[in-house]
């Protein structure tokens, strides 16, 4: 039995050496990945571009080529321009706030203190929780009647009880709320990445800076942050993608309202293409995501390449 097994193993081994050289097996191993990319990413992408130049509608009878007609019409729509502005604005605002907060947290969590493990765990929680659930939580936190934030502000006598802010009902406050939820979700992730970046700096380097006469801010901005730049860009690029492509937060929190003031490209594309049945216009809107994502992808690949060289 044992002998048979070894013989079989040897046989197998010989076979597998032969198979490794055959292109068929190689292709078979490789194809699931190709299939996955083609079916789930490539197809919808090509379809979106195809629809963007057509007059496709949900339940429509035929599809005709209409050239740039869809792009012309959405560019004239104020809601679209608002969505584009929001997408870019939310992404930039969220990334700035996330980077500042994540840096502060990373500095605070670097040195050991009693209960650090628990604090780290609590900070990581928002990242582990599903976005949709977290956003539903925030919907209640920011509710016009039951908001705990309003309640605390009233209790502190900062706002009057019968004239409370409508967090999700006023355009500026609603925008700020969307950014807040994005920050809440991204800070844990960035904190963990930046913490790793900080710990990777040899401890003699900030010590040398201290002896050279640098204070806290100079050490932070001229030594630590520049040395963490590669890892900061990873956090930044990931955060950009998460915020720019996200529609869950907007969809659940405000559904684009009030009056499309918090609409972003993904949520507006969904509202137009799926809810509003105008597939072609929705596709055209989503195509506007491509240049930004291509740029981010390019920067990421360049960074990965640099990391390989270093």
């Amino acid at each position: 039995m044992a002998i048979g097994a070894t013989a079989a193993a040897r046989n197998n081994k010989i076979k597998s050496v032969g198979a490794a050289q055959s292109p068929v097996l190689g292709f078979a191993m490789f194809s699931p990945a190709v299939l996955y990319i083609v079916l789930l990413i490539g197809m919808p992408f090509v379809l979106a571009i195809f629809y963007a130049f057509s007059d496709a509608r949900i339940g429509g009878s035929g599809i005709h080529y209409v050239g740039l007609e869809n792009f012309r019409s959405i560019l004239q729509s104020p809601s679209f321009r608002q969505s584009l502005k929001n997408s870019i604005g939310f992404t930039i605002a969220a990334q700035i706030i996330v980077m500042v907060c994540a840096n502060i947290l990373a500095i605070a969590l670097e040195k050991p203190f009693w209960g650090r493990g628990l604090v780290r765990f609590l900070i990581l929680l928002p990242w582990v929780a599903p976005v949709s659930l977290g956003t539903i939580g925030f919907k209640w936190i920011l509710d016009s009647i039951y908001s705990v934030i309003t309640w605390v502000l009233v209790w502190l006598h900062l706002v009057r009880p019968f004239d409370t802010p409508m967090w999700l009902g006023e355009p500026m406050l609603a925008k700020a709320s969307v950014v807040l939820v994005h920050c809440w979700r991204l800070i844990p992730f960035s904190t963990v990445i930046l913490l790793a970046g900080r710990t990777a700096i040899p401890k003699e380097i900030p010590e040398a800076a201290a002896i050279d006469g640098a204070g806290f801010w100079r050490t932070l901005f001229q030594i630590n942050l520049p040395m963490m730049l590669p890892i900061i860009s990873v956090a930044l690029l990931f955060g950009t993608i998460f915020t720019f492509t996200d529609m869950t937060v907007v969809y659940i929190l405000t559904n684009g309202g009030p009056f499309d003031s918090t609409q972003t490209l993904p949520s507006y594309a969904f509202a137009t293409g799926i809810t509003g049945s105008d597939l072609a216009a929705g596709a055209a809107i989503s195509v506007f995501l491509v240049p930004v994502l291509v740029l981010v992808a390019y920067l990421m690949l360049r960074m990965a390449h640099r990391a390989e060289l270093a």
Partner: protein
Amino acid sequence: MAVVTTRNLTKVFKEGELGAVNDVNLETHEGEFLVFLGPSGSGKTTLLRMIAGLETPTAGEILIGGKVVNDLTPRERRIAMVFQSYALYPHLTVYKNIAFPLKAQNVPRHLHKDKVEWAASLLGIGALLNRKPRELSGGERQRVALARAIVREPSVFLLDEPLSNLDAKLRLSAREELERFHRRVGTTTIYVTHDQVEAMAMGDRIMVLNKGVVRQIGTPKEVYDDPADTFVATFLGSPPMNLIQISGMIAGFRPEHFRLNDEVKESAKLGFKFRVENVEYLGAEFIVSGILVGGPANEKKVIARLLLSRSFEIGSTYDFAVAERDLKFFDATTDKKAQVRALSWQ
């Protein structure tokens, strides 16, 4: 006025445990090259880091230029330190590395260029100013670290094993360079090392530490010829001092003083029967190890260092002797240096 003084300086990392540094009293002389020598874990680096302000002392005082600096940050102490790893800023060019202390201490910007160039030329790295640290060799990095330390003209230099990252050949030339550098700038320097050869070669004075306690401070000649206890006696010198127990004392003699009986011309000498067990030929000298036969130190392993080229039979016994004036005595219970005593047992 002493540049650096410590008074009963103590550092305890974990309460209830033996301190890393215990009760160190130290006073540097103006412009001297002082070496902290000790095995790893002896507290020499902790002591240096306390002087630099990177560790807080548990007890005691540190004075720099006559002023207590315990509560001052490293920045306010106006010292310079070179780390074992050099700790160059990897994202800055050599020029910016050297200019960093000037920037940090708000030296007017128009003075930077001259000062950096002065420091760079002092160390012969003027051609490297536009390079990044990763493009430099080990020796060049060390020079950049020194230039960064010298550029602000500090009152004291602290060097933490700066040669230990270099290979053996480079270490020798870097050592000479450091000595020349010190002679030229004349700044008081504290140098930490575990290498007794480095300590002997470079130090004006050596402070020998073990387990956080100062065992001896003295010139290289003093610590070598007149060790304060058995630890210093065996830590300095390669091979180390031979120690044997004679009539309630510990007697020590250096391997180079343990010679064939015929060659010890002094009349006051102590004879031994020495059975050779191993001979190492090192070119300029022989290291002969073996054991003593008979007498109170029977079977004790000792080492002789001989210059002559005569052959020894392994396993044979020879007549060896030590001149009495070359014998050091230590108390058998405290291991401390004891008064010379007349001895004879044969």
